[in-house]
């Protein structure tokens, strides 16, 4: 138990370090002292302090918010479905939100506020569509929930296809949305963060409050029910929190959902199955992952700036590959 706590503390320390790194690295390197003074005694005339406060800090906050929400959502989804591939990106949540935002903007000229709601609606619909599809396809011999993931992938493909079709219909507005749809952490989206942050805070709070019953449920619904957990209520509440939380994250900077797939797998070996430790650990690690990815995406491909979402897709795809190999293929080998 002690080393699990230690993981949490070191993650928190690491988060602060990455945060500072993120604020200081960039086109100009800004020393820690300047960053501190930007916070403590802001000088309007100092260019570097302006960069920190109005460019890098919003960007870092977005990364933090998005990473924390996607990672904890992924952890909860993996526990609830007892499927190692579950995450907002693989269950249609990200794609649904993306398709709805694009649809809203292209067809109804949605403003920023309305886009947020469209993202939420899309997240919920995308997820429900994946669930319905999985039930519809309902493969009879599917002990490990493969059809759920397959349905999620197909629903995502369909929704992203729709979004792309809409984008192509109007080249002028395409440019605005194009970088958003591939997942872009950018300070221009700061307004969105300020308008939806409370949604994320509420859902994260709700998930943390449900950590104990969620842990029990990851062992199995029957066991949880016999231990006195109101399984249906906890499922509904936590799914609602996941959809609202990750939907709001997508609304800010587009689908960056693979953090939600990868981070829980990174964290689990250190903190175990207990969500009371696991959720905060996931949130911290997710935030670190997004901050790091943001930095790499900005710096590694000079002179180009890569969208963070693309980089995370690459890493997430690799992780997806390893997870399939480890959980679905190695298992098949052992079964022989």
């Amino acid at each position: 138990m002690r080393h699990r706590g230690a993981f949490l503390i070191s993650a928190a320390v690491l988060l602060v370090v990455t945060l500072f790194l993120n604020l200081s690295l960039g086109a100009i390197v800004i020393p820690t002292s300047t960053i501190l003074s930007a916070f403590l005694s802001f000088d309007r005339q100092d260019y570097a302090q302006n960069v920190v406060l109005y460019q890098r800090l919003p960007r870092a906050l977005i990364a933090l918010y998005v990473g924390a929400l996607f990672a904890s959502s992924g952890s909860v989804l993996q526990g609830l479905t007892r499927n190692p591939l579950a995450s907002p990106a693989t269950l249609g949540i990200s794609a649904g939100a993306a398709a709805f935002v694009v649809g809203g903007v292209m067809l109804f000229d949605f403003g920023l506020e309305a886009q947020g709601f469209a993202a939420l609606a899309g997240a919920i619909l995308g997820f429900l569509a994946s669930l319905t599809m999985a039930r519809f396809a309902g493969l009879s011999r599917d002990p490990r929930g493969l059809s759920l993931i397959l349905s999620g992938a197909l629903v995502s493909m369909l929704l992203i296809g729709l979004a792309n079709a809409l984008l192509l219909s109007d080249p002028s507005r395409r440019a605005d949305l194009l970088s958003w749809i591939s997942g872009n952490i950018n300070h221009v989206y700061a307004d969105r963060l300020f308008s939806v942050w409370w949604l994320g805070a509420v859902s994260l709070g709700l998930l943390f409050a449900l950590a104990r019953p969620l842990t029990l449920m990851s062992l199995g619904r029957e066991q949880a029910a016999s231990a006195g957990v109101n399984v249906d209520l906890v499922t509904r509440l936590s799914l609602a929190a996941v959809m609202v939380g990750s939907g709001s994250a997508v609304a800010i900077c587009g689908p960056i959902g693979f953090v939600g797939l990868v981070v829980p797998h990174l964290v689990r070996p250190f903190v175990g199955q207990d969500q009371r430790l696991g959720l905060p650990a996931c949130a911290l690690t997710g935030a670190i992952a997004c901050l790091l990815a943001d930095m790499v995406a900005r710096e590694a491909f000079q002179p180009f700036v890569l969208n963070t979402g693309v980089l995370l897709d690459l890493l997430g795809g690799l992780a997806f590959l390893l997870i399939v190999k480890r959980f679905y293929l190695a298992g098949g080998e052992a079964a022989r």
Partner: protein
Amino acid sequence: MIRRARALDGRSVLRLGNGFQIRLHNLAAALALGLACLALAALAVSIGAQEVGLADLLRSLTGEPLDPASAYALWTVRLPRIVVGFLAGWAVALSGAVLQSLARNPLADPGLFGLNQGSMVAIMLLLVFLPAAPREIVPLAALLGGLGVGLLLIWLVGGARSGGLAILLMGLAVETVLSAITSILILYTPPETSYGLSAWLAGSLFQASWSGAAAFAPWFAVGVIGIAVFGRSLAVYDLGTDMARAIGEPVTRSRPVIFVFAVLMSSTAVSAVGPLTFLGVLAPHLAAFVSPATGRARLVLSSLMGGALVIAADGLLRGLPSTMALPIGLAITLVGVPLFMITLRLRTLRRLQAP
């Protein structure tokens, strides 16, 4: 000597002296599909902004001159588009049908398995790092990329006796990684090629031309030979590797050859028009719905269905009364996903019905 006879299962067949037989139902379906392709092409010829149609085409074939705008629309835009569309659809569907027997997975598709993405990454790598390379080696790069992904997939899945769905998930994972790489690579392409690439990455017939069709022709011939040579073996592959070997198919020798053939077909289509995801799984299933078949007949019917689908989809897209320039690959995905789901559903139902 050809005569009509009954096969062992009581169905009418045409039988040659050496025992070669074709099921009449399959033959009729193939003829019908071929006619459908011609009819669709005839319809597609008259779709577009320029008022010119089949009648004009026939007139120009008899030597009567057309006004330059009509001639351009007909001969330089629409006809090559139809021909290249048919060839690409034909090749993708053939590749899908072959892969399904090879992987013994009814959901196999060169797009879902990531082979198309592999071809695209290879082409992009070529364009980024060897921009001076002759255009003729693009198909070769596509082939190598597709083969690379195929081998990677085989290595990843290994000898594990995993269900078809797990292989599909693995393919999707590979596809995700590769499309991220594509997105990174596109940053490095010169701006003038970048826009054309984006259209091609989504799968499109905008750039179809007679020279594209001519470049495709030898691969079409290879495809026909492949059907003739491998078609029969694939029926045996459907019985499982052990059974196939037991009844006389040298699987260890023939499988790599057939696999290269399947990748060749899909990568040729990719270099011609970009990825047509889902077509490879869609066409064989629809063909089987029209006329159940095995072996060569299945390949022929599937590929004809693929060609017909692309001509039809492209015609529909051009007929859409809007400014939407939807790439054909996207359109096939939009139609393909729901149909794919229905296929999964039907499979489940069939399995539930089976005792």
